[in-house]
């Protein structure tokens, strides 16, 4: 993709983010941080490329290290968000 297309996606996504995040209820701000943390680990894509392509051995091991780090975040982030969200309950009537 050329730089301008990428930039367009980025700018529009910033606006989407702005409106979506303001609509998050303050009661869920902690789960919001946990889940954003999990999804920002999509950086694992870069780590996978470095480790899969193996154009250089150093890049491969760096990549694998990155995969471990990002996986901790992905699994940990989603799991802890799930655990928190499961606790939010409405009044029983």
């Amino acid at each position, binding site marked *: 993709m050329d730089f301008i297309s990428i930039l367009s996606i980025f700018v529009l996504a910033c606006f989407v983010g702005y409106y979506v995040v303001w609509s998050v209820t303050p*009661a869920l701000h902690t789960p919001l941080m946990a889940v*954003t943390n999990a999804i920002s680990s999509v950086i694992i894509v870069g780590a996978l490329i470095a480790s899969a392509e193996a154009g250089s051995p150093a890049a491969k091991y*760096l990549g694998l290290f990155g995969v471990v780090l*990002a996986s*901790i975040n992905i699994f940990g982030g989603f799991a802890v968000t799930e655990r928190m969200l499961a606790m939010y309950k409405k009044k029983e009537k």
Partner: protein
Amino acid sequence: MDFSLLAAGVSGEGATPAWAMLAYLAAGVFFILALRGLSSPATSRAGNRNGMIGMAIAVVTTLVTHDIANIAEIGVAIFLGGIIGVTIARRIAMTAMPELVAGFHSLVGLAAVVVGFGAWLDPQSFGIADEATKQIFAVSRIELGLGIAIGAITFSGSVIAFLKLSGRMSGSPILLPARHIINLGTLAAILGLIGLYTVSPQGGAAEGWMIYAIAVLAFAIGFLLIIPIGGADMPVVVSMLNSYSGWAAAAMGFTLGNSAMIITGALVGSSGAILSYIMCRAMNRSFISVIAGGFGADAGAGGGGGAREQRPYKQGSAEDAAYMLEQAEKVIIIPGYGMAVAQAQHALREMADKLKEKGVEVKYAIHPVAGRMPGHMNVLLAEASVPYDEVFELEDINSEFSQCDVAFIIGANDVVNPAAKTDKSSPIYGMPVFDVDKAKQVFFIKRSMGGVGYAGVDNDVFYMNQTVMLLADAKKMVEEIVKSLD
């Protein structure tokens, strides 16, 4: 399984087939839906599932479109990370959530640095180098430099935030002389190096020192930025680092031309920025003054704090509190960080249950900066099975204090300090606070009269006619009240 058909047309040099681009876009949309779900607790779990689906799409797409000679090693790496992540997520106490989030942010930051170095070492695989000259494109160099710098700042800053939040490092600000000049100088040096790297003629190893220097300086500035920031400002810091981790992912997304990463980075970056803004607004402080640091260091020097005379106050017992609480029609509970420290949320919910059995209306009032991260108190109350529709935000409940019989303050202090409304010299002046002075009766659980809030100012609420101080550990006091209510 043979992936060669699906990957047809991929040169192995990073060119991405159209279907893969669409798949990354779909992953990005799932991430948007994940955040959208958080607009209400009822839809939040479906939102979280969407996040997982998006991540699975992104990972599978990447694996399928690249050489997967190392699939076994990658599998082991994912498995290892997964085990560690799930174990931490299962074991962590809800009160420790702020340091967990800070810790996770540091991992994103470090992963960004690692990916940045990986791309620099193997630019061909990332599709960021010229086929003929093997040089990294100029625009990719900027993205790479920024990605590594932001990642490194996120990493070291989050490590410090983690150490402060978990109590492994003093929460009080550590002030270096001339720190603003050092920080600005370091920042300028980082930007200068990124510029120099971009325009330098040869690519690859010859400029190695610049990339290393960018990383080292960025690690240093992350450290320097966070050490002068005190405990009370941690909600802002955690939100800010959340934002940085997003921008780091976005920068790497630019490098890879990957829409899933760019969308996610923009979402997370905005999310953290908005949370920082909400926290700053709730303290009536500017973002710059939080980043400049030092808040809470001059305890006692602030308005009214300098000469703290002994003023008369009323002290009560658990029995007094229980008696007044069961007579009340309406009780508003204001929890703060002290409740989290004492782990008093379960006892508090028991107390509320007893009161509700006796026909008392109980509500919880939460200040945006209560606790150590946004929404911290809500999670703790949810953990103690407090229904979320009994929990209210500052602006929704503040008008109700004049009709409430008892305001029950547990582990909060600055957020009920009327000096924020009246005393212009107070460091917390202008911060929105709960109008507890309008309640008929105030119970204030506090460990002792000695300590003041994080802002280091005295609180007139202690000495009001209708205030009764309950001086004890929050959990023990609430448990005693529960016993007296039987």
